[in-house]
């Protein structure tokens, strides 16, 4: 054992909080572990590895992709998502929205806001669970080799999922608007603001935690807020148009921030390795 290695251990053991005597005794113990030699690759081993990896080296990407080509890639990725995203997302979202509109239309929502406040985050939960990260869709291996970056794919999915839910929500809200023409914006804000807020918060959280955990935390937190408001304020749970608009804006900001951080190697990018479900795909 070289003195350099011992010096390195001494410093490391100090960092571990060991006293001098304890560190010396631990070094002797570590010496036995150090005697377990890890195999060193030969020159031929390394050359063979390099040879196998040459096929993986990608063609040089353009240094500054023109905006038009980046949009083209994302549009193509968005079209592809229509085939990849599960049927449960489309049907589930539609069912949730129809139920919400029906309950409001039948007058079962005492404040016209409670049901709508619950609809938005439920849609977001469905969308987040279905749309974030390829691991939920079983497409991680494919994503790793396709030209679109993870960030482009997330944006494409967000556009498709969020776009669908917002468009469907607006269409299904028409009957409510017709019943109460003076409350168009208020009705829309009641379901749209929590939807955007939940999506944004889930995206930001999913950069640090798993997608499932992020979706569950956001959904649960919002439910608790609504229930608390119901308990404290009675049937009139509405936050008001102004606060709804602020919540929606906060959601949009978080969506923007989340996609920016995704581009700059957030911890979630290690999920390129972590999220793979098929380790055994690496044949020599």
């Amino acid at each position, binding site marked *: 054992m070289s003195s350099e290695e011992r010096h*390195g*251990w001494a410093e*490391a*053991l100090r*960092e*571990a*909080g*060991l006293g001098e005597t304890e560190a010396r*005794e*631990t070094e002797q*113990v*570590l010496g*036995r*572990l*150090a*005697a*377990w*030699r*890890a*195999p*060193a*690759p030969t020159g031929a*081993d*390394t*050359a063979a*590895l*390099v040879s*196998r*990896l*040459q096929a*993986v*080296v*990608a*063609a*040089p*990407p353009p240094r500054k992709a023109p905006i038009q080509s980046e949009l083209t890639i994302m549009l193509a990725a968005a079209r592809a998502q229509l085939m990849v995203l599960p049927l449960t997302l489309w049907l589930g979202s539609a069912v949730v929205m129809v139920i919400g509109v029906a309950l409001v239309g039948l007058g079962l929502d005492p404040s016209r806001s409670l049901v709508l406040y619950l609809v938005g985050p439920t849609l977001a939960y469905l969308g987040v669970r279905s749309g974030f990260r390829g691991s939920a869709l079983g497409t991680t291996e494919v994503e*790793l*080799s396709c030209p679109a*970056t*993870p960030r482009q794919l997330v944006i494409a999915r967000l556009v498709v999922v969020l776009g669908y839910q917002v468009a469907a929500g607006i269409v299904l809200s028409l009957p409510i608007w017709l019943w109460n023409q003076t409350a168009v914006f208020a009705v829309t804000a009641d379901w749209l603001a929590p939807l955007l807020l939940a999506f944004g918060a889930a995206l930001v959280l999913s950069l640090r935690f798993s997608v499932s955990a992020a979706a569950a935390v956001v959904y649960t937190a919002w439910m608790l807020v609504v229930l608390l408001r119901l308990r404290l304020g009675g049937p009139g749970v509405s936050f008001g148009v102004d606060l709804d608009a602020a919540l929606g804006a906060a959601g949009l900001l978080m969506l923007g921030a989340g996609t920016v951080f995704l*581009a*700059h*190697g957030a*911890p979630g*990018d*290690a*999920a*390129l*390795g*972590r999220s*793979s*479900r098929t*380790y*055994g795909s*690496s044949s*020599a």
Partner: protein
Amino acid sequence: MSAVMNGDRSALAPLVERHHSGLLGYLYRMVQGDRALADDLVQETYIRLLRSRTYSPGRRFKPWLYAIATNLVKDHMRSPVGRTVLAAPQMMEIAADEASGPEERAFARLEVARAAAALNELAPEYRATVLLRLFHDFSLQEIADALSIPLGTVKSRLSVGVKQLRQRMEAPAEQ
């Protein structure tokens, strides 16, 4: 790495040569001495690296490389195959005194096997921290970057890992 990401194939060999030995050694000890598995994981690490589009030139390469490797080990351990605990490797390479006799070498091999078993008993997150700090000369900050954990967590894992390792290595051998 930037050159490789731009498609410069000639930059690949030096990149691999620089890290192959250290990476193989790390993965070998992480997967309980399975050489074939370690080789596969090394290759898979580089493949994931080369396919990743998220490298930025200012990013430190070595922690990122070992981050991918560590995540692959965790994925493997979660898989049904990964849960099989390998027996103490009979074909271990050990550093033994050339002048010692066969009995001394056999005893040294037993001691090393015990040490390896003690390391294997550590939870993967402690094992990774101990190996990176003590055997791969990573700084605490580099370990924090590689394992995506705060610096304080690195220190506590190092402390706990070293103590557990020592306790297990000093425990009486099983009959």
